[in-house]
């Protein structure tokens, strides 16, 4: 399979502190790539560099390349990159003043789309893709904050999908959810693979094993190992990886 996104010698800093160092990694198209590792290993920083969210924090710096379908994203305008590479965050964060409908179309509307038919179509399609349509189709004008935690997270996924990104980044999307809501999101991730390239950061190894095609293990800002998920968990090549997945540290 072809790499949709590729990092080349990517390093990132918070002020003087180096968070990730010299990461070269491929993310395959129409596949789920997981990044695992203990807290503070730089997995969130890495994923935030992929759609230029890292630079929204003051005093940060990035070196190296991120290539999306042949183009260096650091040579494109940041807003263009973020429309092509969407993101879902750890904590569900629907816009508090907007209804469910408005939340889904926020990305389109605030980028200038006014055509009501197009917006309606985007709401239907995105909510269906996010497996939320049946639960909210009669209450589209209710506040996004009125939904349960798991529904809110699926609403955020629908909101990210509505701008038709090519890649969807997920930064620990289930860590604030209960097991049932988590299972729903995991099913969803599995289905979305058909149309999108997904990158998911998780500190839950079982989750990586359940949803990901390939898994990368990071430790202290370095990429230690990347492999097909099954191989990484069953036949780790590095002793660090083995100690982590067997629970000896982390």
């Amino acid at each position, binding site marked *: 399979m072809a790499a949709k996104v590729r990092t080349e010698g990517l390093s990132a800093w918070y002020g003087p502190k180096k968070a990730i160092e010299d990461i070269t990694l491929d993310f395959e198209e129409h596949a789920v790539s997981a990044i695992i590792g203990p807290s503070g290993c730089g997995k969130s920083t890495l994923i935030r560099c992929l*759609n230029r*969210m890292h630079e*929204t924090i*003051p005093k940060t710096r990035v070196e190296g390349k991120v290539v999306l379908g042949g183009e260096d994203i650091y040579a494109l305008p940041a*807003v*263009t*990159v*973020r*429309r*092509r590479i*969407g*993101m879902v*965050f750890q*904590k569900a*964060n629907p*816009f*508090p*003043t907007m209804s469910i409908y408005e939340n889904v179309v*926020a*990305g389109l509307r*605030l*980028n200038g789309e006014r055509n009501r038919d197009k917006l309606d179509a985007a709401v239907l399609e995105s909510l269906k893709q996010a497996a939320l349509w049946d639960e909210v189709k009669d209450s589209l004008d209710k*506040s996004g*904050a*009125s939904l349960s935690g798991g529904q809110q997270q699926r609403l*955020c996924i629908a*909101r*990210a999908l509505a*701008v038709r990104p090519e890649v969807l980044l997920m930064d620990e999307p289930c860590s604030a959810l209960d097991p049932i809501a988590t299972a729903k999101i995991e099913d969803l991730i599995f289905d979305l693979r058909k149309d999108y390239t997904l990158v998911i950061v998780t500190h839950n190894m079982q989750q990586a094993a359940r949803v990901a095609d390939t898994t990368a293990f990071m430790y202290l800002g370095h990429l230690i190992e990347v492999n097909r998920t099954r191989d990484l968990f069953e036949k780790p090549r590095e002793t660090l990886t083995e100690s982590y997945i067997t629970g000896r540290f982390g």
Partner: protein
Amino acid sequence: MKFRFDRETRRQWKDVVMNVAALLCVAIALIPLGSILLEASLRGVQSLSPNFFTLTNANGGIGNAIQGTLILIALTALIALPVGILTGIYLAEYGKNRFGAGVRFFVEVMTQIPSIVVGIFAFSLILELGAVGIVSPRLVFSTTTGVIALSTIMIPFVARTSEEALRLVPVSTRESALALGIPRYRAILRVVLPSASSAVITGGLLGVARVGGETAPLLMTCLGSSFWFGGLDQPCESLPHTIYVFALGPDAALNQAAWGASLILILMMLGISITSRMIIRLRSVSR
């Protein structure tokens, strides 16, 4: 009878004493407030009549003062709300650097400047501009100068409250807007600002209430007038000024009318506070 002063009893007594002390302090704080409200209501009500609202100061009414205060408040809000809110946005969203820290400090100091000093500032500003011929010297005592003074008081107040309101919007709201490829200025205006709108509106209304009650800066800018509003370049009457003049006036009828004017001013400011609370409540219910 014998008191058993074990640990538990001591604690219970301490609790009682603290509660009583707290209640006492509340009473001390509320007595002046209650007495003002009661006095102003009881005495003020007596002077209320249709004529009281329709006549000018010259004839013992407060019609022109209400008109003047409303004009002053409206013009001040027109200037101070946009400038103040935009300053607040700058401080909260872009001001995480040394320049921002400088502006924040400056705004902070501005909010604490005695209002009479602000009056002198507006007065001297127009006086100087008049001396070099940029504006007419007549403008020194005018509605315009009054609005400059009141805006100088209100802008830092609104900037501070807006900044604080915007800071309460979680970073995650900003991040998720940016992650949708929305340009930063639009994310701020269309997502972050609406999320903080009730607090921003409250701050704006409290700012209006604050300048609505100002007297000192108006003494040397608007001056006061016994007539109806005559234009932006003319002196202008206001409720606080009317109260000041009536209260110091030589005859008992004027002193009585001062109570009526006080009551009206209190009711206006109370109305603003209640409106702002209602806005907050309505918005939180609709959620």
